């Protein structure tokens, strides 16, 4: 595999929109750091409860400059706002809630996702730290606790290396938890039979996606362009 990005796909914002369209009304969702955080821009007004692992339900949009309350931040330390029905609780309660299965969906970033849904996202070995320390944060709790895990990430690394792999080589966040992978290039479902390519970005083919994906993809008979 070469070391340049081969294809131009969706912007981060459109990836977030594609994820937002996957979320169901009446559900409780936790958005991880990075691209997942952008999903919140696309669900304003929808009947979806956002949980912030810091200890808040019904997290509102980012605070405008000048309206910042320093005691009101999300898990990425961004100042946010309240919505009608927002409530607060302790970190311990927040993770009881997450482990207890109250997140219908967690949208997480990832460094690698394997064919069987293993997720590696908390440590990049290139940083040179021992493989048992790093920023685990709430990632393992969310990956294991949520009923459904959606990964939102760029399809390949900056160096063009596979991130969708046969076996994760980075330290794992959780095994066998990822159900859907939304990238800038494709939407891929993780099934017991393997990775099923469901959607591709405009102008790309299944062959294109396979060329930047290590495991063999099953091409859905209903393969289509990513819809918004």
């Amino acid at each position, binding site marked *: 595999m070469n070391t340049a990005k081969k294809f131009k796909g969706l912007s981060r914002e459109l990836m977030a929109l594609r994820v937002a369209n996957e979320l169901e009304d009446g559900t409780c969702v936790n958005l991880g750091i990075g691209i997942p955080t952008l999903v919140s821009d696309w669900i304003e007004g929808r009947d979806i409860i956002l949980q912030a692992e810091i*200890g808040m339900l019904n997290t509102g949009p980012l605070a405008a400059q000048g309206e910042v309350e*320093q005691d009101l*931040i999300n898990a990425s330390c961004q100042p946010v706002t309240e919505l009608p029905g927002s409530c607060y609780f302790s970190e*311990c309660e927040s993770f009881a809630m997450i482990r207890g299965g109250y997140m219908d969906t967690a949208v997480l970033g990832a460094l690698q996702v394997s064919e069987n849904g293993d997720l590696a996202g908390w440590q990049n070995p290139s*940083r040179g*730290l021992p493989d048992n320390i790093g*920023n685990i944060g709430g990632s*393992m*709790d969310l990956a294991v606790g949520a009923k459904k895990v959606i990964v939102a990430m760029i399809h390949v690394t900056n160096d063009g290396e596979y991130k969708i792999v046969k076996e994760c080589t980075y330290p*794992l966040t959780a095994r066998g938890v990822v159900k859907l992978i939304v990238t800038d290039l494709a939407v891929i479902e993780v099934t017991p039979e393997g990775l099923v390519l469901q959607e591709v970005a405009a102008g790309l083919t299944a062959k294109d996606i396979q060329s930047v994906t290590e495991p063999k993809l099953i091409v859905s008979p209903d393969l289509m362009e990513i819809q918004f």
Partner: protein
Amino acid sequence: MDKVYPGVDEAVADIPDGASIAISGFFTAGTPIPLIQALARQGAKDLTVICMQMGPGNEDINQLVINKQVKRAICNYPFYRSASRGADSPTEQAARAGKLEMVVYPMGTFIEKLRAAGAGIAAFYTPIGVGTVVETGKEKRVFGDREYLLELALQPDYAFVYAYKGDRMGNLVCHMTARNYNPEMAASAKIAIAAVESLVEPGEINGDMVHVPGVYVQRVVKVDRPDYFPTID
């Protein structure tokens, strides 16, 4: 039962070398900065600090590392997200050089271990971390059709907590997402020291609104409300 101390320096004065201290705060929110600063002045060594992060949003803890006061850090999100910023961080440098022992737990496991200590629970089985490096050295056990790890209670000697409002008996009210680790860290420690923005008399807080019952708090000290823009970048 008046638990008020005149200032942060008096409140941390007796912390001995080798003590373990749980320090609350989720990045910038609910972090008892004045107590951390007092600890840096006080100078106790060989400390174990138990806190979410060692730097990001908690810059003052760096001074403890620079002072070589910290022997061991038990965390869940210790480092800056940015590798380049991390390379400049005293904690990351100390960790790489093997001069700082470090243990990292998943966030929920981290606070549940502290809660267990405060709640008289010796250990519990959690599904988080199974199949990852977190399971190393831990007992694994199947309940139903699922694997779980045994995690032990973690009891600190001290806790530094933070509240929007507190009374002289130690009842605390937290504000919004600044609540985070405060209630369970206070309960976990033998001696919990609370920095409060507003100090009031018993009876001024509605008993239904107390987030940390006074019995968990041994010392209360009034501090000024910090003024900052929340950021870890």
